[in-house]
């Protein structure tokens, strides 16, 4: 049985054990401005990325501000 999670709506293999690790692989660090993360529908503040584990079936949203009206 493969371990997968959904990141921004796309299924991918669970390769990181914490939110911080997954984000770091995408060059996003706790100090990075203009980014926010929600795990299973709840915001995870940057200060808690390191201590928040990822488990199979989790859904992560990584967002940033874009042009809008």
């Amino acid at each position, binding site marked *: 049985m493969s371990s997968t999670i959904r990141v921004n709506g796309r299924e991918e293999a669970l390769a990181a054990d914490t939110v911080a690790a997954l984000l770091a692989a995408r060059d*996003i660090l706790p100090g990075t401005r203009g980014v926010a993360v929600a795990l299973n529908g709840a915001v995870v503040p940057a200060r808690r990325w390191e201590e928040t584990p990822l488990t199979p079936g989790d859904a992560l949203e990584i967002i940033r501000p874009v042009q809008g*009206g």
Partner: protein
Amino acid sequence: MHTDTLTIAGRGFGSRLFLGTAGYPNQQVMLDAMEASGSELATVAIRRISLDGYSESLTDVLAGRFGGKVGLLPNTAGCLTAKEAVLTAQLAREALGVDWIKLEVIGDRELLYPDVEELLRATEELVADGFTVLPYCNDDPVTCRKLADLGAAAVMPLGAFIGSGLGIRNPHAIETICARSPVPVVLDAGIGTASDAALAMELGCAAVLLNTAVSKARDPVRMAAAMRDAVSAGRSARLAGRMPKRAFAEPSSPQLGLIGS
């Protein structure tokens, strides 16, 4: 010259024009238009980062050009439910460090028309969570009153469908909303050209929020300047107190001493 500061949730604005950042030919034009508009509040949307990773933040670009002169108003564009909108607002707060939110909860993807039930629910929840909520809503005095009662910092009724450029479809409704609202009224959506913005202010709106009218004009920077002037002119006309409308003619030239009388 009297000062005419706009105050929303205790924050003062020198400009009564709020400007969106979407749909410009390129980022440079957007920045130039923002400057020409004199706006002190820019809206941004919240979206997933792209697959190719994280690039320069729009908010860094705005801050780089304007510093603290132009504040940020994130929106919940695209949300269909209160739940989605609340999460989006919370993510925006986390990403931007700003607790103001332009709350959009849509009931129809073609019309982008507000879903009043979900909008009221989301407003209540976000106010309780400490947000300064500016809800985009329909031009309905009852909805506007309910939103104000729930603690919205302003109400933002539409003039016409988002992006339609059809102007203010129901001026009497907007005027009525303005006359009764305990919070500032920001005309948001449907403005197409300068006269629409001026009319909004003449009807009693405290401010105007527009995007497409500028970004899709042939010359966005020039239109942004026009909107700046229009909002200013409409506001001055409002404060000046217009003449009453009359059913018949009333001559302005004297009636006595007419040649041949």
